[in-house]
C-alpha cells in the first residue's frame, strides 16, 4: 500500500500561441490561451496512479487557485486519483514558488501520505523550486529530476537525470518528495468511464484559515521573489537562414559547423 499526494498546477499553453504582455508588464494576456495541466505534473499524476494500481493505496491531488483549477483536478480524478483538494484564498494571489510551497505544506502536513510527487518544474514560470522548498518546510527528504520510481516496503529506489548523460540511483525512505521529470511514463488518455465516474464528485475547498496559514505568510508579502516584468527577447538577430538547394544548403551548413569547431 502506498499513499501519494500529487501537487498539480494549471498553466497556459503558449507553445503555439502568440504571447502578448499586459500593459503593466507583470502578466501575459491569457483570455485567448488554452489552459491545461502542467506537462510535468501530468507525468507525476500518471506515476502516482501507476504506483497505486500496482501496490494499492490512495492518490490525492492538490491544486492552488480559483474554480478554474477544478478542470485540472477533475482530469486527475477521471484518470484514477481518489481525492482532490483545492486550496484557494484571495491572500494566495501573487505567491512565488516559496509561498506556494508554504501553502501546500500547510495543507499536506495534516494528511496521511508516504510520498509527495510534484512536477520538476512548471511550464509557465519554470521556477523549478516548489517541490524542494515543500520538502524542506515539511522536514522530509526530496529528489529532483526523477526519471524512475520503484517503491518497496516504504522505501523508494529512484533514478535521477543528471547533466552530460549521467544518471544517479538513490534509495530514499518514506516520507519524501519527488520532483518528477517528463518522459518517465506514458500518460494515459482520459476515458469516458473515468469522466462519468467522477462527474458527481465534490472537490473540497480549503482557504488560508482552514489550513492554518496567515495572510502575511503568503501572496506577495509572503514571497521572496518579486516579479518585475515580462519581456519578449528581440527576434533572432543572430539567426542566419541558409538558402539554396538541399545539397548546397547542406554544404554551407557543414562549412559553418566546421568553422565553429563542431567537428
Amino acid at each position, binding site marked *: 500500500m502506498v499513499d501519494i499526494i500529487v501537487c498539480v498546477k494549471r498553466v497556459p499553453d503558449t507553445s503555439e500561441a502568440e504571447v502578448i504582455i499586459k500593459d503593466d508588464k507583470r502578466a501575459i494576456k491569457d483570455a485567448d490561451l488554452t489552459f491545461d495541466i502542467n506537462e510535468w505534473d501530468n507525468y507525476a499524476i500518471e506515476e502516482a496512479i501507476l504506483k497505486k494500481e500496482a501496490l494499492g493505496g490512495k492518490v490525492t491531488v492538490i491544486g492552488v487557485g480559483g474554480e478554474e483549477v477544478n*478542470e485540472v483536478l477533475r482530469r486527475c480524478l477521471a484518470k484514477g486519483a481518489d481525492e482532490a483538494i483545492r486550496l484557494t484564498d484571495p491572500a494566495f494571489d501573487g505567491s512565488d514558488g516559496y509561498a506556494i510551497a508554504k501553502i501546500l505544506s500547510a495543507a499536506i502536513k495534516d494528511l496521511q501520505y508516504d510520498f509527495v510527487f510534484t512536477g520538476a518544474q512548471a511550464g509557465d514560470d519554470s521556477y523549478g523550486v516548489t517541490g524542494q522548498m515543500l520538502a524542506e518546510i515539511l522536514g522530509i527528504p526530496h529528489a529532483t529530476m526523477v526519471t524512475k520510481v520503484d517503491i518497496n516496503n516504504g522505501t523508494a529506489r529512484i533514478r535521477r537525470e543528471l547533466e552530460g548523460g549521467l544518471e544517479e540511483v538513490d534509495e530514499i525512505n518514506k516520507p519524501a518528495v519527488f520532483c518528477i521529470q517528463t518522459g518517465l511514463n506514458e500518460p494515459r488518455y*482520459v*476515458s469516458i468511464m473515468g*469522466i462519468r465516474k467522477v462527474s458527481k464528485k465534490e472537490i473540497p475547498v480549503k482557504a488560508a484559515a482552514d489550513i492554518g496559514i496567515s495572510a502575511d505568510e503568503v501572496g506577495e508579502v509572503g514571497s521572496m521573489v518579486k516579479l518585475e516584468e515580462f519581456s519578449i527577447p528581440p527576434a533572432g538577430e543572430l539567426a542566419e537562414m541558409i538558402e539554396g538547394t538541399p545539397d548546397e544548403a547542406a554544404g554551407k551548413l557543414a562549412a559553418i559547423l566546421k568553422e565553429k569547431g563542431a567537428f
Partner: protein
Amino acid sequence: MDFELTDEQKEIKKAAREFAEGEFTDIAMECDREEKFPRDVWKKACKLGFIGAYLPEEYGGGGLGLLDSLIIAEEFFRVDPGVGMIMATTFGSEFIFLLGKEEQKQKYLPPLITGETICAAAFTEPDAGSDVQGIQTTAVKDGDEWVLNGTKMFITNGTIADWMIVLAKSHPDAKKDAQRFTTFIVDCKSPGFSAEKIHGKMGIRASDTAEIVLSDVRVPKENIVGLPKMGFYNVMQFFDVTRIGVGAQAVGLAQGALEMAVKHAKERKVFGRPLIYNQGIQFKLAEMATRVEAARNLVYKAAALVDAMKPDAAMTSMAKWYAGETAVYVADESLQVHGGYGYIDEYPIERFYRSAKVLEIYEGSKEIEKMIIGRTIGGKY
C-alpha cells in the same frame, strides 16, 4: 437559455480531442491512401469508452446523451474525417436501442462497446437510395424463418461488420406502400451473405464501404427489429436521430479545416508579411468561422431536442443540410487559403476537402433534407 457546454461536456470534448490528436494524426494519411480501416485505434477508442458512448451503462455504454456523444464525433472529425469514422462502427445499433427487444439489446449492444463486434445498416440499393420505398430486396416467410434476397449498395462497414440491420420488402401486398417493409438483424456469417469492398471513394477512405449480396439468406423470426411491416417508419425514425450525427461530423470537419486555414495564414508570408494581414484573407476566415458557429448551434439544438425527448425531424434536417454544406464550403475556402500547398497531400486539407462532399450525400442528400424541411413549414403540396 445557456449556450455553454456543461463541465462534463467540456471534459468529454477535451478527452476526445486529446485521443484523436494522439492517435489519428500519424496514421491518417496511410489509412486514406490504402483505404485501410484503423482497427488498432478503433480498439483503443472502445477501451476508453468513446465508441457507443450514447448507450446506457447497463449495456456497457457511457450513458451519455446524444449531444455528449456527438461532441466526440465532432472532435474525431476535426482531427481526421477518415479515421474519425471509427465512431460509425456502431451505426445501426440505434435501431436496436430504439426499437429492439430486451434480449436483442443484451445480445447485440455490449460487444459493440467493448470492441468485439462492428455493425452496419443496409437500406440503400443500386436503384434506391433517398427513395427508400423503391428498394427491391425481398423477405419471404418460410416457417419460423425469413428468406432474404437482394443487393445493398454503399454500405458503411460492409466487409468488416459482424451483423447488420437490413431493410427488405416483406409484405408486398400491404395496402399502404409504406407498410410493405420490415427491418431484420442479419448475421454476416450467414450462408448466402457476401460483401465486396467498394474501392475508389473520393474521401473518408479509412471507412469501409461495400456492396452486399443477399442470396437466400435465412434469418430467424426473432431477428425482426421493431414490428413487421413497420420497417420504413423505423428507418425514418432512425435517421431523425443519426442524421444529427452527420451534422456533428460536418461541424468537426469544418472546424478542423478552419483551424488549418488560420494556422497557414499566420505562418505563410506574402509580400513581406503573414497572409493573415490581408483583409481579403481575414474576410474569408471570418465567413468560415461564422458559418461553423451557425452550423454547430443548429446541430447542438437538434441534439438537445432529442435529449429532451422532443426530436424534431425538420430541425434534424436543417442541422444535417446546413452543416454538410458548411463543411464543403469551409474545406474549399481553407484549401484556397493554402494555395498550391493545399493541392498536394503534404498538408491534410486536401483530405478534408475530398471527405467533406459525402456529408452532403450520405444519410439523406441535402435535397432530401430540404424536402423534409419544406414539408414541415409548408405542408405537402
